[in-house]
Each structure stands twice: as structure tokens, then as C-alpha cells.
């Protein structure tokens, strides 16, 4: 250009942050992550394992022996595996059919159906199982109804393996509904038309074209189901009966008794190894198959009509039957929260027993709010914390593809290998004394330790979900931003984060909702003066209380559902509106 320029390099740009500062930040982030992982993921868990196998400093396999010779332990362990495997099948069957009914087939009223199927997102664990028991159990609604028809039937029919399987099958479809639906929406619709053009029937298309493309998503949710199945607690405890107890309640019991913690750890290791094997297998299958669509232009899916009239009617019946299974417990919990203990015990509804007293006593009892506030704050902070940690980790895993990023990824998956009670114990035994790596502080007995625990247990799930979002970002965006002079940090916050935000928010909501009523972890770690909701509700139903608090548990359940629904609405509802407007 002009002569004065010809001897100078290209005009230097102002750059947002000085290069040095960026680098310092980057290394600071690396250091923080490394510190967090080592301090809270590695050391406590290693500590647990060490104390398990090195009694008084020498290696011992006594725990293994004890367990191997215990019929109960072995059968519980076996049951856990049976449950995990059978759930992997049944949840997939139900979950996939749910998604097909709401997103693939043309079913009347699919929007309402979807809402019904989504009820599992707003309540879970103890509350959900109690809800089911309330319907199918001894004095349950359905049972009473059936007994009227078949007076000879066994009132306690709803126990054991089938009951557990039934409850958990319907309880665990949330991930299908969220992640598989997304996958279906990304399907290349032209492949379906192509198959049709070649004469394939609706179900052949489903089997040969649609489902194979969904396999990666199905694999991913199957891992989650399997892990859930292995760790099942509430359902076997409540409806498993004597014939079908699983291992996690036993781990819970053992870990509560200091002298038996080695057994708890040992049992957890069995489960952990199974999880590892599963993860490895799934990764292998995922790599082997090819599921990337080759189309450059995708057309969005058009809902498929079921042409066969008979099948169509069947599908509608099936859809609405499922809808009832999902919705009835929720409706009844809500209805019965307005009644008295007697109505609940006998499972009868009448106008005369309708009362607002439960809610009034909740509102007027100031100590009743506190657990809500405590749990909401904890869940909020933990969900934010876990997002910050996993997003920064994913950023590194995505950008730096080497041995270290692999180590980072796998160490963040560690909490999947141990049940939450063991993680809690690891934290207790590590942080009940001053530790130099956390500045000589004691964490047990502080408010921090439960927050840490919440964050830790949610990391693996969050990582898996957010990593997927990261890897779907177009690499050139980052280049483009850099080329326009933006620093890495600026690029991250201004460009990348907004793109993954929808995924981040949905994981955030799911984490928040599930932490809200957590019991297993909380019971070990909560600060006695700040009792979280899960512990509070559990204490309400405790056998040692004389007062009948069942009505109050219903009330709490309803309020938890309301909070969860609000969270979901904030994340999804608003999203839907926005896209509609746009």
C-alpha cells in the first residue's frame, strides 16, 4: 500500500488480552483441574480401597472370603446383575417405543403423551417407587380394584423381581426421552423414503433403517441404564420383597457400620469392574459401526402414518396405556396429598376426606421450609460447579488430543466405578483430618463436603453428555474467531459456549432435579444443622416416629415435583418458545 507501510509488517492488531495473561490463565486452569481430580476424585477413592485391602498395613483378602461364603451377598449381587441386564432390555424396549410414539409415528395427541412420559423427569427415587407401591402394592389402588374382581387373588402380588423390573423400567426412560428424541430428529428422512420407494414396510424400515442409525444413542443410554440397574436402591428395598434384594442396599448398610466398610468397598469393586467392562465393550461397538450419515442435505423427519388400521389402533392403545402407567402415580400422589393418613393407608378417595390441612401445616411450620432452601441451594451450586468443571475439561479433551487428555477423561469417569455411598465414605475418611493439599483444612463437618460430593457424583454423566455437544461444534468457527483477533478465552465464551448451551442447560436441569432429593450421599455428609430434603423426607417416614407422616411425604413429593417442573420449564419450555418465535 502506501510507502510508509511497505517496510512495516502487517498492521498489528490490538488483541483483547495480552498473550501472557491468556497463557497464565490456561495453565492455571490445567493446574486447578489436576488439583481437583487428584484431591477429590483420586485420593479419597484410593484411600477407601487402601483401607479395605490393607488392614493394619498388610494386604488382606478377608473381605472377599466373607462375601464369597455369604449366600445373601452372592444372591444380591446376582440379582443386581440380573436387574441391570434385564433393565437394559426392558427400558430400551419401553424407551424406544416412547420415542417412536412421540417423535416418529403419527399418533394422535402425541404432545400430551410426551408430557405424560416426561413425568419421570420431575420425580424419582424413593418418591417414585412409593407412588408405584401406592398403586400396585398391598392396599394399592389397582390392587383393590383387582381384588374386587378376583377376590381370591394375593393382595401382595406386587413384590419381587417383576415388580422391581416394572417400576424401574418405567422410571428409567428419561434419558431416552431426551437424548434419543434428539437423535431421531437428526435422522436423514430421505433414507426412510428411499426404503419406502423400494417397497419396504413401515416396520421393516424401522428395523433396518431407523433403529440401526440410532444405535450410538441407544448404546449411550444403555450404559446409563446398566449403571442405574446395578445401583438400584429404592425399588428393590420397597417392592423387592425377600426374593429380590440387590446389592446396593447391602452396601449401604455395610458402609454405615464402620466395622463392615471393607465389605462395602469390596462389593462396590465388583460393580465397578462390571461398569468398566461395559464401558469398554460399548466403546468397542461404537467404534466398529459406522453411523455417520453420508447425506449432505438432510431433510427433517415427517411423522409416519401407520397404514395398517389394526396396527394403528393397537399403537394408539399402547401409547395411551403407557401414558396411564406414567401419569396415574403422579395424579394420585397429587390427589392424596390433599387427604388424610387413613385415606392413604386404605387407598380410598372421597370428597369428605379432602383437606388443605397438610399444606397449611407445611406453610405454618417454619422448619419445614429449611430443607427446601438447603437442597435448592446445594443442587444449584453443585449443578453449576459440575458444569464448570466438565465444560473446562471437555474443552481440554476436545482441543488437546493426547495421552494427558485421555487420562483427564478417564479420571473424570472414576466416580462411575463406585457407588455414591462409597464415594461419601472416601471423602469422610480422607477429609476428617487436616490435609495439606486442601490447605490443612478439615472438610467433614463443614458445608463444603456435601457440595463436593454432589459435584463429584454428577461429573461422569455430565462429561459424557457435554463432550458429545463439544465434538459436534464446527472446528472452523474457532479458527474464524481467532482470525478476527479474538483470544481463546473470548472465543470460548462468546462463540463456543453459546453453541453448547442448550445441551449444558438440559444436563444442568437433570442434575439439579436428581440432586434435589438425594439421600444416599447426603445422609453421610450433610451438615447436621442444614438437613437436605432427601434426608428430611426419609426421616419423616422413619420407623421410629409415632406420628403418621405419610401425608407429609405426599405433600413434599408434590412440592418437589413443582420445583422440578419449574426447572424443566425454564430450560426447555423457554427454548421451545424461542424457536417458535424465530
Amino acid at each position, binding site marked *: 500500500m502506501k510507502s510508509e507501510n511497505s517496510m512495516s509488517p502487517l498492521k498489528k492488531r490490538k488483541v483483547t488480552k495480552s498473550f501472557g495473561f491468556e497463557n497464565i490463565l490456561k495453565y492455571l486452569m490445567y493446574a486447578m483441574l489436576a488439583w481437583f481430580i487428584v484431591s477429590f476424585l483420586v485420593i479419597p477413592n484410593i484411600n477407601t480401597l487402601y483401607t479395605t485391602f490393607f488392614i493394619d498395613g498388610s494386604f488382606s483378602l478377608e473381605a472377599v472370603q*466373607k*462375601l464369597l*461364603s*455369604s*449366600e*445373601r*451377598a452372592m444372591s444380591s449381587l446376582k440379582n443386581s446383575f440380573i436387574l441391570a441386564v434385564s433393565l437394559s432390555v426392558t427400558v430400551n424396549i419401553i424407551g424406544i417405543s416412547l420415542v417412536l410414539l412421540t417423535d416418529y409415528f403419527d399418533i394422535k395427541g402425541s404432545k400430551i403423551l410426551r408430557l405424560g412420559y416426561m413425568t419421570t423427569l420431575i420425580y424419582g427415587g*424413593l418418591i417414585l417407587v*412409593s407412588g408405584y*407401591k401406592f398403586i400396585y402394592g398391598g392396599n394399592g389402588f389397582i390392587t383393590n380394584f383387582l381384588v374386587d374382581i378376583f377376590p381370591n387373588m394375593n393382595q401382595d402380588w406386587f413384590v419381587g423381581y417383576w415388580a422391581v423390573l416394572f417400576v424401574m423400567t418405567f422410571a428409567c426412560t428419561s434419558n431416552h426421552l431426551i437424548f434419543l428424541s434428539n437423535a431421531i430428529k437428526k435422522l436423514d428422512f430421505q433414507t426412510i423414503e428411499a426404503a419406502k420407494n423400494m417397497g419396504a414396510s413401515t416396520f421393516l424400515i424401522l428395523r433396518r433403517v431407523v433403529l440401526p442409525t440410532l444405535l450410538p444413542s441407544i448404546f449411550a443410554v444403555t450404559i446409563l441404564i446398566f449403571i442405574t440397574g446395578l445401583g438400584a436402591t*429404592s425399588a428393590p*428395598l*420397597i417392592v423387592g*420383597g*425377600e426374593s429380590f*434384594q440387590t446389592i446396593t442396599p*447391602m452396601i449401604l*448398610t*455395610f458402609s*454405615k*457400620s*464402620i*466395622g*463392615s466398610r471393607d*465389605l462395602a468397598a469390596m462389593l462396590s469393586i465388583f460393580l465397578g469392574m462390571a461398569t468398566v467392562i461395559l464401558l469398554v465393550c460399548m466403546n468397542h461397538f461404537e467404534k466398529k459401526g459406522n453411523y455417520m450419515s453420508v447425506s449432505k442435505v438432510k431433510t427433517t423427519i415427517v411423522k409416519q402414518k401407520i397404514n395398517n388400521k389394526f396396527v394403528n389402533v393397537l399403537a394408539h392403545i399402547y401409547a395411551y396405556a403407557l401414558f396411564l402407567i406414567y401419569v396415574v402415580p403422579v395424579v394420585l400422589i397429587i390427589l392424596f396429598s390433599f387427604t388424610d393418613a387413613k385415606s392413604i*393407608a386404605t387407598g380410598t378417595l372421597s370428597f369428605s376426606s379432602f383437606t388443605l390441612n397438610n399444606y397449611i401445616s407445611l406453610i405454618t411450620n417454619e422448619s419445614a421450609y429449611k430443607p427446601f432452601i438447603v437442597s435448592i441451594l446445594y443442587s444449584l451450586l453443585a449443578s453449576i460447579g459440575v458444569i464448570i468443571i466438565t465444560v473446562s475439561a471437555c474443552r481440554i479433551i476436545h482441543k488437546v488430543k493426547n495421552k494427558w487428555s485421555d487420562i483427564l477423561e478417564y479420571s473424570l469417569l472414576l466416580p462411575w466405578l463406585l457407588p455414591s455411598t462409597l464415594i461419601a465414605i472416601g471423602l*469422610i*475418611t480422607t477429609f*476428617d*483430618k*487436616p490435609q495439606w493439599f486442601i490447605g490443612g483444612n*478439615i472438610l*467433614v*463437618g*463443614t458445608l463444603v463436603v456435601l457440595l463436593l460430593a454432589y459435584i463429584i457424583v454428577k461429573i461422569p454423566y455430565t462429561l459424557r453428555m457435554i463432550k458429545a455437544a463439544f465434538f459436534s461444534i464446527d472446528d472452523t468457527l474457532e479458527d474464524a474467531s481467532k482470525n478476527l483477533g479474538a483470544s481463546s478465552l473470548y472465543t470460548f465464551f462468546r462463540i463456543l459456549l453459546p453453541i453448547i448451551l442448550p445441551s449444558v442447560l438440559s444436563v444442568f436441569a437433570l442434575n439439579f432435579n436428581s440432586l434435589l432429593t438425594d439421600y444416599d450421599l447426603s*445422609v*453421610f455428609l450433610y*451438615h*447436621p*444443622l442444614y*438437613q437436605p430434603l432427601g434426608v428430611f423426607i426419609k*426421616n419423616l*417416614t*422413619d*420407623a*421410629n*416416629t*409415632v*406420628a*403418621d407422616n405419610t401425608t407429609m411425604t405426599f405433600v413434599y413429593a408434590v412440592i418437589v415435583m413443582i420445583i422440578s417442573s419449574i426447572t424443566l420449564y425454564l430450560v426447555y419450555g423457554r427454548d421451545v418458545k424461542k424457536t417458535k418465535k424465530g
Partner: protein
Amino acid sequence: SSNKADSSSKKLVIYSNSTADGRGDWLKEKAAEAGFKIEIVEGGGGDIENRLVSEKNNPIADVVFGPNTMQFEKFKENDLLEPFVPSWASEVSEGLNDVDGYYHSIVKQAILLIYNSDLYNEETAPKDWTDLWTNKEFKNKYQVEASLNGGTTRVVLAGILSRYKDANGELGISKEGWKAVEEFYKNGVVRIDGEDFYANLVSGKTPMGQMWSSGIASREEQHSVKAGLVNPEVGVPYVVEQIGIIKGSKNVETAKEFVEWFGTSEIQGEWAKEFDSMPANEKAMEKASEQSKYINENYKAQDIDWTFVAENMDAWAQKIELEYIK
């Protein structure tokens, strides 16, 4: 509520497994009148134990009351307690307080086998725990607990197992003893999480089971049922609920004042009257209910070597969990 407590009132955190059925609220109110602003942390005996142990280096609690002698022995062993001898220590029945002054007794509790008296009478009801499994009529008629972390459950086991003490047996118990426990669990019905024993007792699903004596009256009222109490020849296990001060508490002085106040015959008497308990303080016993007095007088204490039990209980519990519970 604690409105009466003025701002100068002294704050305390109290751990207890004995605050159910309105005891906690009552205590809060009374304490407030006496100038203490107390926070009560409830939990099962096992939970309290775990908490105290894990918080050893950073204690939150100032006072603990409710756990039994066995558990307090463990606290003492773990160096969790601050020794303090209140003035009312001498009013407590002989042999219940800790000789070293680390903890002192407040309430005695008989652990009983009870039954629904609408369904059984003294004739048809079991005469002792052992009848439960030796008499086929009681098969699946009594309730057992699957989790052995609870204090009451452990005492019941202690009552059964100490009858079979055998220095050469496994964990100090003879073969016969283990067989008895096995039968005990085999013939019983495990309580399902979330179910209420009394509700099952009333409905007849499991009309028998273990109960702590001071809980009976309030439940009889609630469920309008009269419970029959089994009175075995060997006697019934009595557990003693103790009180102690946590070592490292930031409010040791207040804690001492509280213990001093709580154990007096006046408060214990009121407590006994209100909640049908059997006070360890002999002076307070006068105020106890008729039934408590009746039990106190007619149900003799089973002879149990508590030291032996305390030493072995964890191992027993583990063995039972692994081998006998279905």
C-alpha cells in the same frame, strides 16, 4: 417454639436418637425456658455414631444423649467425650453411670417383645423370644429388621445371643446360638423400608415384634390397639440411654450447664411423665407413669455381659447380615 429464649440465651447443638414422637420439640421448649437455645440433630443410633466418629476432628455437636451404654463405651474408647460429673449423678441407680465420669444415665428402656392383644392373649402369645422360631404357629407372624444398625435391634440380638455364650464358639457364641439366630430370621418377616411396624401389628400382617418400652403408650393411643408385653423368664434386656459432652465442643461450659439441667429429677420426672419413660434418676421415677413403674417392677433385667456384647456386636451384626438375613 423458642420465642421465649432471649438473645442472650446460650446456643447448643445436641445429637440424639431419642427425640422422636415430640420429645425434641418438648425439649426445645423447656430448654428455651431455662435459657438454652438448642438445635437438635436427629438420627438413628448408628447414624449418630458414624457422625460423631467422622466429625472427631471438627466437632459440631456439643452434647449427645440417647445412645445406649454400648455405644457410649465406643465413644469413650474413641476419645470423643469430655468428662463431666453432674451433681445429679449420685441420684442415678447404682451401676448405670460411667465410673470414669464420661457419661451419665438418663433413661432406662426395656426392649420388649410385644404382640397385638386383639389377636393373642397371654395364653396363646409366645412366652419368650425363643418361642418365635421353635413354635411353628408364630412362623411369619413376627417382624424382624434387615438393617442391624439400629440400637434396639442390636439389643434384641444381644438378648438372644448372650444366652449362648461359648468361649470356643464362633465369635464367642455357640453353634446352637447361631442356629437360633438363623431360625429367628428364617421364621420372621423382614420389615420393608417405609413400612410402619405398628401398622403391621394392627393389620395383623406381623402382629409381633420388638419394641422399646417408652414408645408403647403413645403408639397405643395413635393406633388404638393394646399391646401385650412378653415377660420371659430370663428377663428382658434393659438399655440405658446416656448423656455426655463432646470433646472439642466450643461451648463446653454451656454444655455442662445443660447436662446439669437436663438430668435433674425435676426435668427427668416431667420427661418421664410426658413420654412414658423410665428415668434412671431414682428420684424422678416417682413421676413416671403407672405402666413404666409396672414394667420397672415386674420385668426383671436380663443378665447380659455388656462388655462382652460391646466387643463383639459389630462382628455379630456383620455375620448375621451376610449369612442369616434373607
